[in-house]
């Protein structure tokens, strides 16, 4: 059903010199501590990372919960901040689709689409035979997801020992990891332009609309980069 050789190969991407473990660990540690501080139990915190596994969405959930937002408002706010998962899925799944593989694998494993797993898959898929890419992906996804859940537990348990300066230090780890992975992904003009323009237009649009800046800035930047790459 799942090819264990490829699954394990994917799972092992959480070790080694390009390991996402510390970056993922640091950010979900912070989530665990945050959820404890806003009144979640340990089980609820685990349940949250288990089911959501997308950092900005969990942060928005925590903020909305604190101000007592309605469920409809929480749904809309989370959907907006996690809408980036749509283009991420569309730019990943066609690389993994294979006629011989059952569909449930795709609908189940899309839950693992989050920035770190996505970036790891994008930089490794070419070395994997297409038929088994979905199994490799399920390995990466399971590995990164388990790190996230474990770190949420640790963060919840150690939250009393973390001072504010340490929380600030932990908060920079994920941006550092993502930035390095992005630099590593700059292998074509189109992708390099997408990344550079996105990093400029995202913050620029913040002055117009903080909520929509990432989506607007990102879609505009990606579209400009696409056309420059196609018609240069």
């Amino acid at each position, binding site marked *: 059903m799942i090819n264990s050789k490829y699954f394990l190969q994917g799972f092992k991407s959480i070790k080694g*010199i*390009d*390991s996402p473990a*510390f*970056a993922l660990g*640091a950010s979900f540690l912070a989530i665990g501590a945050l959820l404890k501080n806003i009144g979640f*139990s340990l089980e609820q915190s685990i349940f949250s990372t288990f*089911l*959501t596994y997308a950092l900005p969405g969990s*942060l928005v*959930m925590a903020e909305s919960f604190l101000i007592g937002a309605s469920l409809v408002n929480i*749904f809309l706010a*989370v*959907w907006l901040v996690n809408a980036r*998962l*749509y*283009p*991420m*899925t569309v*730019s*990943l*799944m*066609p*690389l993994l*689709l294979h006629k011989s593989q059952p569909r449930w694998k*795709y609908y189940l494993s*899309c839950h693992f*689409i989050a*920035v770190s797993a996505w970036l790891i898959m994008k930089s490794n898929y070419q070395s994997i035979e297409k038929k088994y890419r979905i199994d490799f992906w399920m390995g990466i996804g399971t590995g990164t997801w388990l790190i996230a859940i474990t770190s949420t537990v640790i963060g919840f348990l150690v939250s009393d020992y973390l001072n*504010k*300066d340490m929380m*600030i*230090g932990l*908060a920079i*780890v994920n*941006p*550092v990891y*993502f*930035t*390095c*992975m*992005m630099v590593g*992904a700059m292998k074509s003009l*189109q*992708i390099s332009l*997408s990344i550079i323009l*996105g*990093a400029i237009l*995202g913050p620029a*649009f*913040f002055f117009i609309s903080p909520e929509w*800046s*990432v989506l607007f*800035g*990102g*879609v505009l930047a*990606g*579209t400009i*980069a696409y056309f420059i*790459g196609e018609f240069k």
Partner: protein
Amino acid sequence: MSELSSNIILVILVTSLATYLSRFLGVVSSEKISETSKIFKWFNCIAYSILAALIARIVIFPAGVLEEADLLFRLLVIIGGIILYLLTKKNLVFPTVLSAIILTLLVT
């Protein structure tokens, strides 16, 4: 179950549904998109640029504790991380571990 804890469960369920929705719709759309098509390339560009926009926004206009560190410190740690990553032949452990330690020391 108390009212508060059933409320928390609902909040978690709503959050995870709102998150899974984009992933699910992405798979539905992927069924019709070939990896060599123009639309795939376009979405690929958008995915990378949205991620870059998100990271840049987190560093420049952070929400939460990160805003208590100076913008200059945040940028220095990011740039230092990139340099270390390139110097160590794409090692990600050094930049991630060191960035946490250095920023903690800088803000202390």
